[in-house]
């Protein structure tokens, strides 16, 4: 360690400050979930679990949860199939433009979501496609593919090729080798990539607003509408509390299963 003592102490204090900044809003909102008052005023007036029951019985919220689960499953399925195929092609074959593929898949997350949203909406409208869950899934899949791709390709880079060669030497054809050797070796990468893609889809609002029809609401769309209705505030607080707790799942997965394979953040 080459840093002098005062630098180390200063950095520790600054890091602590940043962590407080990151967590304070989440903690404050989590406390509101137990606030008996209908008004969002600080400090809370007491403690209650009443709003949890109210949230569980909210029909609009239930419908939104179902929609979000379907959209997440659909987008994750598309992303896993296409992302895995692309990762296998890039990792196992050489071809013209191979370097460009990674850049191509990063583009939907590098360009602002509002661009993806308006582009898809314009296209659906021009082609007279009915807006609904299917259009939401298409929108989510465009940026979920990159997560599946990144997770699978990181795993493929570390996999030794010898088991596959041995399998081929023993007479297995391409499909058998893939099914018996490559696929099991990719298993956890597919699991973590799939769950991270699902989590991303579950949280998406910027693109979803453009690709959802008037009758279809996902969880984020429900929250956005409910925030602006004072009567729904206590139920939103409960939903927010649950979502904050749920964010531990992708973090756990990213740490344990992927072993930090996805280097920078979410993608």
């Amino acid at each position: 360690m080459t840093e002098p003592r005062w630098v180390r102490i200063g950095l520790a204090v600054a890091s602590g400050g940043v962590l407080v900044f990151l967590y304070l809003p989440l903690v404050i909102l989590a406390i509101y979930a137990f606030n008996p008052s209908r008004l969002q005023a600080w400090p809370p007036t007491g403690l209650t679990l009443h709003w949890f029951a109210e949230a569980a019985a909210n029909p609009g919220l239930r419908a939104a949860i179902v929609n979000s689960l379907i959209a997440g499953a659909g987008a994750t399925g598309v992303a896993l199939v296409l992302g895995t195929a692309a990762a296998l092609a890039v990792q196992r074959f050489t071809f013209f433009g191979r370097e460009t593929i990674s850049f191509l898949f990063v583009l939907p997350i590098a360009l602002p979501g509002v661009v993806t949203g308006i582009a898809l909406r314009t296209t659906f409208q021009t082609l007279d496609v009915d807006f609904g869950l299917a259009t939401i899934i298409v929108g989510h899949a465009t940026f979920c593919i990159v997560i599946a791709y990144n997770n699978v390709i990181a795993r493929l880079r570390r996999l030794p090729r010898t088991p596959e060669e041995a399998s081929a030497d023993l007479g297995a054809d391409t499909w058998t080798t893939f099914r018996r050797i490559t696929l099991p070796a990719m298993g956890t990468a597919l699991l973590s990539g799939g769950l991270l893609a699902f989590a991303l889809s579950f949280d998406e609002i910027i693109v979803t607003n453009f690709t959802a029809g008037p009758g279809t609401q996902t969880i984020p769309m429900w929250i956005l509408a409910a925030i602006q209705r004072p009567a729904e505030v206590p139920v939103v607080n409960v939903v927010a509390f649950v979502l904050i707790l749920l964010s531990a799942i992708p973090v756990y997965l990213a740490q344990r299963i992927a072993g930090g394979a996805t280097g920078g953040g979410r993608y």
Partner: protein
Amino acid sequence: MTTASSVSAPETPTPQPGRLRRFAAWLHLHKRVQRNLLLGGPLTWMVVAYFGSLFILLLGAFWDRDPFTGQVQPFAWSLDAFESLITNPVYLTIAVRTITIAAAVTVTDAILAVPIAYYMARIATPRVRQLMVVAVLMPLWAAYLVKVYAWRTILQGNGFLEWALGPFGVDAPGLGQILNAWVVLSYLWLPYMILPIFAGLERIPNSLHEASADLGARAGITFRRVTLPLVFPALVAGSIFTFSLTLGDYITPDLVADAKFVGNVIYDNSSLGNLPLAAAYSLLPIVVMIGYLLVARRLGAFDSL
């Protein structure tokens, strides 16, 4: 793979190979076909769903609208959308506001991220480092709207900020301040900046720091002359996210600052049926981001993505 996956193959080799098996054996010898089957699906998806949509968006910017009903007339060409964008100064104001806030958010996040990333990469023990990575990842994965909503409750009247500032006799500014957008967007995208910088700092071998110290450089000089140039590409990689995510956000500005960003104009006009204007204005973030990405690539950011 995509074509074969729908049919299940028998477990053991059979004396009379079925059609699928023969196809698989043939595939084994034809690597190019294998590759094309693998690439076909994802490339078709990207080209049709994504680039196809972007192309239609580009066309949509030049579509005409019925002068009486306002109905969009696809494939009837006009420059009306661009004319209104240029003649009405509000669109320039909004563009300048959005890009200024995006730049401010990026600089703010860089300033906040470097110390904590440095602490994580070089000073914390492995155990503390692991805990801090988790501590930075948690808020990143917490739902976007939950975070915006949390700030809304903090900033609004009778909220946490008013309560905290009250004893000092300072009035909370309340919602509807453009500075709120700067604070909240900096908050939202901060983890996207911390993680790449942390990864970049971790890649710098410790021997370089020691060499610099041995040659007589003090901590400040080592940081400026050795660490910062080496971690700069990672910082630019993080800035792609902070800049792009701010540039395209239309929910946070509306909820915490009551301000219009480029995204709000795009969203509002597309909802109101003025698609050509929305499409034409969306060319602005596309052009800005492509320029940003080209500069970022020159600075070596893509190796740190």
